[in-house]
């Protein structure tokens, strides 16, 4: 019984939150890695692009709510996502046309493109803050919990409750659908294969008749889908605040590099590596050991490896270690 309690405790406080957070990071990391692999620059506007997509989704959500539309127990934001993606795609293509295209055609070094992306970051950030403001916004509606902690306790008769928020389930389900479609697209369809070929060797791809314009456009469209969905899922689970989204860029980068930048599957796993290590290392295990160990051996401290303040620092330290010992990432990506 104690063992079950300990297990549920870990599930509730570590496994489920880390899985949801990891999925959100994974989507962002695939976004970064796709841009890096095909357009060949580190996109410092990642976080702000995600916040732009989320903002559009929130505006649509508000509009639908004012019309009285809803999805019942699901959040209305899910209905807004397709519209937001369209807007986001338009925004990305506009940016590409007016900003990135020039440098791509001039074959500028990646560093210059990264600097340009900082300009885009500033502009996007300004646009988001001017339109929706810098404050915290919650746009979740619908049923909040799938399983409540006390319901679970009653059902099973255990001491520990397991609470599963519906946003966590939505996050995980959407991530599975999205990522598997994406991998199917990249590996099985002709367009996906040509994208991979272009990423692998640009000159050879061009020689074999792949149209770079089409590749770039599709990449931005996929990026728009990933950015919007990733942003909305994060916003539903926590809340929407432009500044947090900007900061999320850092663990997302960490995830992409840990997984091997340029490798979508690596980025996907990288997200979970970062999320799990953040939560595992900063969780206080006192209660867990109280269940597992006999009473005489009960710990008196919190048994916390690192204080929760260092949550971000954990992922960055992992990144630094990976950079030192395996610069190409866990799964071999492009060697930078």
């Amino acid at each position, binding site marked *: 019984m104690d063992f079950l309690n300990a297990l549920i405790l870990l599930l509730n406080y570590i496994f489920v939150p880390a899985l949801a957070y990891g999925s959100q990071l994974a989507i962002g990391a695939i976004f970064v890695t796709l841009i890096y692999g095909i357009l060949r620059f*580190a996109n410092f506007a990642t976080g702000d692009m995600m916040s732009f997509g989320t903002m559009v989704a929130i505006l649509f959500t508000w509009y639908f709510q004012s019309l009285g539309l809803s999805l019942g127990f699901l959040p209305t934001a899910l209905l807004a996502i397709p519209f937001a993606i369209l807007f986001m795609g338009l925004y990305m293509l506009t940016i590409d046309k007016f900003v990135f295209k020039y440098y791509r055609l001039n074959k500028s070094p990646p560093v210059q493109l*990264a*600097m340009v992306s900082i*300009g885009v970051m*500033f502009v996007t950030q*300004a646009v988001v803050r001017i339109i929706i403001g810098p404050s915290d916004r919650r746009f979740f509606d619908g049923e909040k919990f799938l399983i409540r902690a006390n319901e679970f306790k009653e059902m099973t008769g255990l001491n520990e409750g397991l609470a599963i928020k519906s946003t966590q389930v939505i996050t995980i389900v959407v991530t599975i659908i999205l990522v598997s479609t994406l991998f199917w697209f990249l590996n099985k369809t002709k367009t996906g294969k040509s994208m991979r070929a272009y990423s692998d060797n640009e000159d050879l791809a061009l020689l074999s008749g792949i149209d770079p314009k089409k590749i770039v456009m599709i990449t931005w469209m996929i990026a728009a889908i990933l950015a919007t969905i990733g942003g909305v899922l994060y916003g539903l689970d926590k809340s929407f605040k432009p500044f947090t989204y900007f900061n999320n860029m*850092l663990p997302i980068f960490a995830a992409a590099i840990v997984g091997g930048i340029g490798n979508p599957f690596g980025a996907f796993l990288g997200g979970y590596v970062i999320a799990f290590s953040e939560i595992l290392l900063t969780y206080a295990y006192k209660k867990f050991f109280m269940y597992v160990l006999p009473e005489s051996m009960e710990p008196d401290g919190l048994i916390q490896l690192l204080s929760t303040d260092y949550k971000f620092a954990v992922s960055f330290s992992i990144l*630094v270690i990976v950079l030192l010992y395996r610069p190409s990432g866990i799964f071999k990506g492009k060697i930078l």
Partner: protein
Amino acid sequence: MRKNLNVIAAYSIMMGLIILVGIFQSWNIALSIFNLCLISAVMTMGANIQWGYAGLINFGIMGFTALGGLAAVLISVNPVQEAWSAGGTNILLSLFLIIGIVLAVRFVLKRYQKSKIRNYLIAAIIIGGIIIIRLVSEPGIEAIEEVNPARTGFLGGLGLPIIFSWIVGAFFAGGLAFVIGKVALGLRADYLAIATLLISEIVIAIIKHEDWLTRGVKNVIGLKRPAPYEVNLQETEWFINLVEKFNSGKLALISDITERQAALNQFVIEGSSVFVKLCYSGLFLVVVIILLILTQKALYSPWGRMMRAIRDNEEAANAMGKNVVKQHLLIFVLGSAIVGIAGAMLVTQDGLFTPGSYRPLRYTFLIWVMVIVGGSGNNFGAILGGFVVWFLWIEAAPIGLYLVNLTTAGLEDTHFLKVHLIESVPYFRFLMMGIGLLLIMRYRPKGILPEKIEIK
């Protein structure tokens, strides 16, 4: 003279703009903009040495700035005796333990051949060391943080004049840069950018949460000043006389004695804060000029030519027998040290240390915008970039407000769009920075004052 015309013109326009602010807004605002421009100029010089001279991307400027600020605290604050007696020994012991771990790892690295066993041994030393350090330091940290937490709750500093911290800040930042450089400089450009960005976040996390050292988010306020205090100035004889002489024309117009006294008091209060700011400007100007002379000398020395050679063609420079790795490390340390000076100057000017205020947007990306806009590789350009960008950053809100009023003139004051736009005026600065950066990168990629190499 002729070839420096654009430099002189650019700087005159900049000074003219600041003087205009002085005339139309107030001299107080103009001087505070000027002071922060000078600090930004020091930061951009640091970043320019790394990027402009050597082509190294350092996105960790925020971390080095914060370390400089930390130096200001550790140098100037009076030591907290109680805290030292409560937990000082534990902290010192942990410090020795850290040194011990580093030495042990070095010993293992030197003594044993590269092998799996060696890796495990190092990992064991580090993990074991961390556990021991935690056991040793935890009671000490708790004891220190319990000493009068509302006012101190940290170890305090050395109680020296704060000016020394400018040098110490440079050493702190340089030391960190040495460690980072050893670890990360081998990486290619965009990896280095991301790595330094993340490392600077780790530095900030440590400064924010190690309360025993920095008071963390509780902030350290009321630091010593190298300049006189306004309150004292307002009571000093010579200063009042000076203000009186300065404003004698305006004062003569007021006939009533009590009114004249009131006006004089007003002038003294304003004058005192302007005078204090002028003191800071003088100090900062000295630093900027010294650094400018040094960096300019370095740029035109054989060393500067070597750095450019390394930047432009690493392999060729290597083939000519230049130690690229060593030079990269050197320049990374030097540039970061300059940023550290700026960090200490910033805290000195503010008189407070607020770890929560270090954000990458303000302290890393904005500095980069300054370097790129001003002109990388050209010290005068980098300084000008610091001035222009900081000026716009501050004045963006008034300009934005003016623009909003202009474009929405046809709307009523209560129209929701107008109200919303006026509320979001502070964010126009991001827009201006972004568009400015994009335009400069596209149409003048070498910056306002491009790099110009003359062989003397």
